[in-house]
């Protein structure tokens, strides 16, 4: 009996018991769809995080207070807690590091911002004008604050698009006055919309001169983060070394701060999402395994039910291997058809999941091929035992079976 004949026989047997075959396939469909969806969610999250990190700016080095730990142990969110970096360090990096093109400090803090009688919770981002080029941000209307505003600790602010929408109900905010705590800030510009970038949502923030924040709002002389932009991709390592030596000399120790480049951050974040993806896929695989056990169960029932048929086929000249193949093909066809349907359901499901999560739908070739091969393997693995039982049946006893 050739393969084509085997597939034809299997299809006939599958279609002659549609309800049962359908339910058996459902197990595989759910399992495969779950794997496809979970992997797509994981990969989507990965893409999302990667693009956020890439949106930080290009050729960025990030200096933060605190201890450098094992690469990857520290992720984006874990800011250092020690107050060590000041504007002097920013200036030192700007002056003494030839591979650094631009430097911008940042203090970012969640706070309440009021306008008239309404108020919102948002981020106050305190920085210098260089921030725009370092982070590759743009101003949509009005202007960003200037170096002079920084020197004067001017009471001005540039607002994100989200703040415009929420606090000003979309009206033009330029010239209006905001209140942060007791400090009144005049709005001089609106940031171009950029969405999530790193840990901050660019749109959901107001930007103020660093000195304004230090003196008037937060009462601190420290900065939390220093963004340094290297001249180009090749000078990243040189810039890193320069910053480390400058800061080590100033602060007396390399333990007081750490420097991360974008690749580190990206790698760390991708490590996290990879584990996340594996975890999701692992959980989904359990349902595929359960689906496979369903296939085996039905195949065992089918072998028992068709004992007489097996006996007859043997009497008519089927070899042990023919019977074995017949049932194996049936189990493989069952799980492959289930697998293909599962992949289709999974792709549709991950599109929906991506839309709900606001992530890109990341259905990769691997995320489709692997569950396909997996369902094939499920069919083979869980089919072998029932099929070999069928093949080994003694024809005389099989024919006598009631």
């Amino acid at each position, binding site marked *: 009996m050739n393969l084509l004949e085997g597939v034809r026989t299997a299809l006939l047997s599958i279609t002659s018991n549609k309800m049962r075959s359908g339910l058996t396939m459902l197990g595989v469909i759910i399992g495969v769809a779950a794997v496809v969806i979970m992997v797509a969610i994981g990969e989507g999250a990965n893409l999302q995080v990667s693009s956020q990190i890439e949106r930080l700016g290009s050729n960025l080095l990030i200096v933060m207070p605190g201890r450098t730990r094992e690469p990857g142990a520290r992720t984006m969110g874990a800011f250092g807690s020690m107050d060590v970096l000041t504007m002097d360090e920013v200036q030192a990096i700007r002056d003494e590091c030839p591979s650094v093109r631009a430097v911008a400090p940042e203090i970012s803090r969640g706070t309440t911002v009021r306008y008239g009688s309404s108020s919102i919770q948002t981020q106050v981002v305190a920085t210098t004008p260089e921030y725009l080029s370092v982070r590759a941000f743009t101003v949509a209307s009005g202007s960003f604050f200037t170096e002079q505003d920084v020197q004067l600790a001017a009471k001005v602010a540039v607002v994100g698009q989200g703040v415009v929408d929420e606090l000003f109900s979309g009206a033009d905010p330029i010239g209006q006055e905001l209140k942060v705590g007791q400090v009144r800030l005049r709005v001089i510009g609106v940031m171009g919309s950029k969405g999530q970038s790193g840990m901050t949502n660019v749109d959901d923030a107001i930007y103020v001169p660093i000195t304004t924040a230090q003196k008037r709002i937060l009462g601190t002389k420290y900065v939390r983060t220093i963004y340094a932009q290297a001249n180009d991709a090749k000078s990243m390592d040189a810039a890193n070394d320069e910053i480390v030596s400058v800061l080590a000399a100033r602060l007396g120790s390399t333990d007081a701060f750490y420097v991360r480049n974008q690749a580190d951050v990206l790698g760390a974040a991708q490590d996290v999402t990879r584990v996340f993806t594996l975890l999701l896929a692992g959980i989904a695989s359990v349902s595929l395994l359960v689906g496979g056990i369903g296939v085996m169960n039905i195949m065992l029932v089918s072998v028992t039910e068709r004992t007489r048929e097996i006996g007859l086929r043997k009497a008519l*000249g*089927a070899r042990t291997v023919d019977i074995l193949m017949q049932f194996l093909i049936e189990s493989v066809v069952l799980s492959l058809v289930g697998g293909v349907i599962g992949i289709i359901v999974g792709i549709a499901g991950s599109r929906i999941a991506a839309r709900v999560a606001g992530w890109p739908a990341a259905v990769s070739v691997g995320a489709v091929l692997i569950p396909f091969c997996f369902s094939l393997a499920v069919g083979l693995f869980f089919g072998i035992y029932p099929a070999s039982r069928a093949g080994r049946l003694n024809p005389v006893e099989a024919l006598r079976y009631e």
Partner: protein
Amino acid sequence: MGAGPGPDSAVVRGESSVIEVDRLRKIYRVGSIEVAALRGVSLRIDEGEFVAIMGPSGSGKTTFMNILGCLDQPTEGSYSLDEVLVSEMDDTELARVRNRRIGFVFQTYNLLPRLNAAANVELPLIYRGVPRRTRRLLAVRALEAVGLKDRLHHKPSELSGGQQQRVAIARSLVTHPQIVLADEPTGNLDTKSGVEIMAIFQALNDSGITVVLVTHNADIAQYAKRIVRFRDGLIVADETLSSRTIAERDESLDALIAGLTEGTAEEVKAG
């Protein structure tokens, strides 16, 4: 070859034996109890014979048929088919013998309920690797020979018992076997259908096919040329009928069966 009866063989008869069994014993173990179904059976069946095996239930005749059909192996003794020892064949060779040399007809027909008549008849050809189109052609001819040309697409459940048994006979014929083994082929049929079936067997036998059938109906046995009686796992009588009953049959049946065996042999072999 060369595996014929030994010098002390109990069987001494004509020249070209198809089936030759020598002191066949078959012991079943049920728990710790041994049950001897066959206790030393020696028999020789020549080409073109029509043998009816008779005996009460438990006399070992079905076990004997299963051994003849290469479905079961004896515990002791030898079985030569065309002077080749069956005990020395492996699974593949046994399957090949069952497929090409032997046609089975069962009391309960054993048709696959999902398949229509033609597809049921095609079954043995599938295991022979005959291409689909040839298979269908041969199945149609075989069904035509047993008078079911107009029932090709009927499922077994849509056919009467006699018709189902004729489909089963067509299935046993479609490979152009040397031997047809029938286990109580008329056991589930009324007398009229039974006689129709016997007419087909007689026509088959007249075309040169060796027929061995098990029955415990003495009237049915009268259609054979020779009656072998079993009791308690032994042969107790072996008689050649001087005047057997001839079932009435249409002359076209012979022509169709002759056409079947002659016309299809080449095609089957080609497949």
